């Protein structure tokens, strides 16, 4: 049976991991959970939620719990490239007291410029030591696009003024797994938008090892934690879509699980911000929502401990987890069809764009949506 073979595979992976040395013999995560005032039951509840988020069968819950307990085998190195620190801030939003943050307390954060106490030489030493000591065992997370090739000088670091690209390449060589956190390191991001004056590019374009992309501007902390757990469980890349995004997080369109989907189906649209439709939670498609073209789990996971997400706040999705979204998603407050300036696709029109964005992943429904975009543009009253 398929399930069984997967189950067995993951079990043996975890057995393997449990033979690896821990970072600190004195503490275990189960002890830590106890100390932080969680019961085993709460922990298993969380593991169940993560299991379903990772789209695994319920019988895998104990494995997810076990994987979380294996987190103490994982030193973490986090690099900042050309970025705004928003992804780091998102990481800090991980809720306390929650298991998510517990795991981040528990993972040995060896290098993270925004948080670490050391600076200058001492900071550089911490990075070198981590790479040396945990050779082949540390997780590398990179935030930010990378000025590349002839333009690499747009970012330098440390007393030796090494380029960001050089540091990223060096840190990736001995990493056990590499994650591009956020749209900038996944796809180049805002600095790579046309005309890309610094030749900024994705992490995957500057190193020769496989990279798992966790895009979003910024991505939610549950997507980061989930990615990590998935790695612990499988020890290999998770199932990825064409843009190397984990399918369990980026497999569904925003539109598919949107709380305003019923309004879309009923043809009830906000015509302009602040109108009666806006007050009544109508669909935001006509004021520019890019949910139909965007693959992410925001509509299910939300942000800031479930406080809200853009569509709930009455603003459409801007498509921030899609490649080149700054260039490809058109005008933020208009449907995709009505584009004013050049885009990555040479201005070929909305259906061409939608087709390109959804390359290989959009379902038949998307064609309907692209058609809808056209109709909506035709119908739009001239203002």
């Amino acid at each position, binding site marked *: 049976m398929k399930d069984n073979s997967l189950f067995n595979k993951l079990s043996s992976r975890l057995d393997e991991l449990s033979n690896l040395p821990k970072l600190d013999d004195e503490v275990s995560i189960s002890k830590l959970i106890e100390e932080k005032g969680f019961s085993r039951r709460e922990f298993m509840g969380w593991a169940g939620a993560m299991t379903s988020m990772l789209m695994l069968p319920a019988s895998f819950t104990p494995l997810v719990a076990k994987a979380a307990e294996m987190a103490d085998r994982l030193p973490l190195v986090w690099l900042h490239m050309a970025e705004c620190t928003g*992804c780091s801030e998102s990481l800090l939003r991980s809720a306390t007291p929650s298991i998510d943050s517990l795991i981040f307390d528990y993972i040995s954060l060896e290098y993270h410029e925004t948080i670490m106490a050391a600076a200058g030489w001492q900071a550089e030493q911490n990075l070198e030591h981590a790479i040396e000591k945990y050779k082949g065992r540390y997780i590398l997370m990179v935030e930010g696009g990378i000025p590349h090739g002839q333009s690499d000088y747009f970012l330098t*670091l440390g007393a030796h003024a090494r380029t960001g690209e050089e540091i990223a390449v060096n840190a990736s060589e001995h990493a056990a797994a590499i994650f591009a956190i956020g749209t900038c390191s996944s796809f180049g991001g805002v600095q790579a938008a046309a005309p890309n004056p610094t030749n900024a590019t994705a992490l995957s374009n500057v190193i020769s090892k496989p990279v798992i992309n966790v895009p979003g501007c910024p991505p939610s902390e549950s997507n980061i934690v989930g990615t990590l757990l998935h790695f612990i469980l499988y020890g290999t890349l998770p199932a990825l879509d064409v843009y190397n995004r984990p399918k369990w997080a980026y497999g569904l369109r925003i539109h598919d699980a949107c709380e305003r989907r019923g309004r879309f189906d009923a043809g009830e649209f906000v015509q302009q911000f602040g109108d009666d439709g806006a007050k009544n939670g109508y669909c935001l498609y006509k004021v520019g929502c890019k949910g139909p073209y965007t693959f992410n789990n925001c509509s299910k996971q939300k*942000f800031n401990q479930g406080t809200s997400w853009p569509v709930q706040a*009455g603003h459409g999705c801007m498509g921030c987890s899609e490649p080149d979204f700054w260039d490809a998603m058109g005008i933020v407050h208009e449907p995709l069809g009505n584009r004013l300036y050049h885009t990555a696709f040479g201005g070929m029109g909305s259906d061409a764009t939608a087709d390109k964005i959804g390359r290989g992943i959009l379902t038949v429904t998307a064609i309907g949506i692209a058609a809808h975009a056209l109709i909506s543009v035709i119908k739009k009253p001239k203002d």
Partner: protein
Amino acid sequence: MSKRVIVDPITRIEGHLRVEVIVGDDGVVEDAFASSTLWRGLEVIAKGRDPRNIPLMMQRICGVCTYSHYLKSTMAVEDALGIKIPYNAELVRTLMNAALFIHDHPVHFYHLHGVDWVDIVSALSADEKKASELAFKYTDNPIGTGENELKKVKETIAKFAKNPQGLGPFANAYWGHKTFRFTPEQNLIALSHYLKALEMQRTAAQLMAIFGGKQPHPQSLAIGGVTCVMDILNPARMGEYLVKFQAMADFINNAYYADIVMAVEMYKTEPSVMKPMGVKNFMAHKEFMIGRNEYLFDSGIIKDGDLSKVFDIDEDMITEEATHSWYKNDNPLHPYKGETEPNYTGFVDGETVGPDGKMVKTKQIDETKKYSWIKSPRYNGEPMEVGPLASILVSYVRGNKKVQAVVGEFLAKTGVPASALLSTLGRTGARMLQAKLIADNALVAFNNLIENLKVDQETCATYTIDKDKEYHGRGIGDVPRGMLSHWIRIKNGVVENYQAVVPSTWNAGPMDSSGVKGPYEADLIGLKIEDLTQPLEIIRIIHSYDPCIACAVHVMDTKGKTLSEYKVNPLYGGCSI
């Protein structure tokens, strides 16, 4: 012989920053240079785009002050198009701004700046009972300092400390440094608040998300107003804001305030944080509309530390130059006339103080030439400090009653004169005072919103962009790191030119053509460094400005645009903040 010391990376900031100092045999800094080592060029990217897309794009300048650029950029577009936004939208924006400030300032003090003041290792030897009692000295209602709580905090850190490799993010810092002044008990109190603040900042971020959809990078502004009309018409949602705001205000008043009072008590005799400032000019802009024509903070300029006078800002006096910045044209130009192309000249080989105190070969800047991605902004040819200290001083000298009361109370409580504010310690203290003023007053805007919603539910103005017309305008105000302005020109319905003059540019810029230094560099000169391999004194001064370097360096004008015909809109002063 003088030696050169490089600190790169300066950690616990936003962005990439290098500091180089030249130190004499007596350990005193003779000269200092600040260099930003990243450039992204967002204004170049803005050109030719639909103006409606710009605010979200400019927001990506910074994920820490995540709402600042979004708001000022939106205001710039609205100013250009002549839009007056509804009163409700003004007030909601104020509430979102309040959420940003009361998130950003405590996070800066505890998580970015905190370990410059607090020796975590020293906290291990604290007596938690004594510490618990001591906490009452600084506030009547201490937070997180019960004996049991402090015991737990101590145990958490003890576990870390047992294994030198287990210190994780706290590893290899300047623990035990001579200029740490807190007693073990005081360190333990502050450490407990460091951990508590990690939890509280999530609450403050939720405050932003209530109206903003998420934090970082809220997404609920539109040109003309706000989109979160459902949230503000939902009483449960408003209640959520109120309760979370009050929790955060309590933390600011009884932990943040108390810790700063404690810091003043212990550090007011520490020369490295009390030495005279290098630049004594301050500039701030009015901010926080809490009612009709009622702002919490005022506009103005203070010159040469003279707290008896305050001058109005004349925006024509603002220039930026690039003598020592990695751009082609060196000349001082008004933001609207700027022309800049990257001109990277890189570093030169040199010998500097290595990690063990011996001289090592490194790359160093050539201070006779260009050495930073940050430009040098000047007001009437002079450098200005911007930030919470500037805002507090300007409002104080303007006679702002709320600010005068809070500053007066603080000075009385700490027993220091107003002149003590003009220091590194004062800068760190003023940030807290600004947070307190917002925590104490922002709910005036909340109440005014509730009142106004009874008679008016407008949240977003309508507008059109005429492709045959040209527009220009800007958004200006004080954000957590100081005065920020975004300037836009629109032609053919797209962005013709975009400029942002950013707080950290004012503070972190390199020398100008006359060799006059900006606040960071000037402040380091004369500083005594105890141990050249542990330059904590440098880090502490730089952190007191709350550097946001990605903000500072993105600035770049489009090539060769002459925009001299631009006139500052005289009505602007009375328009939307």
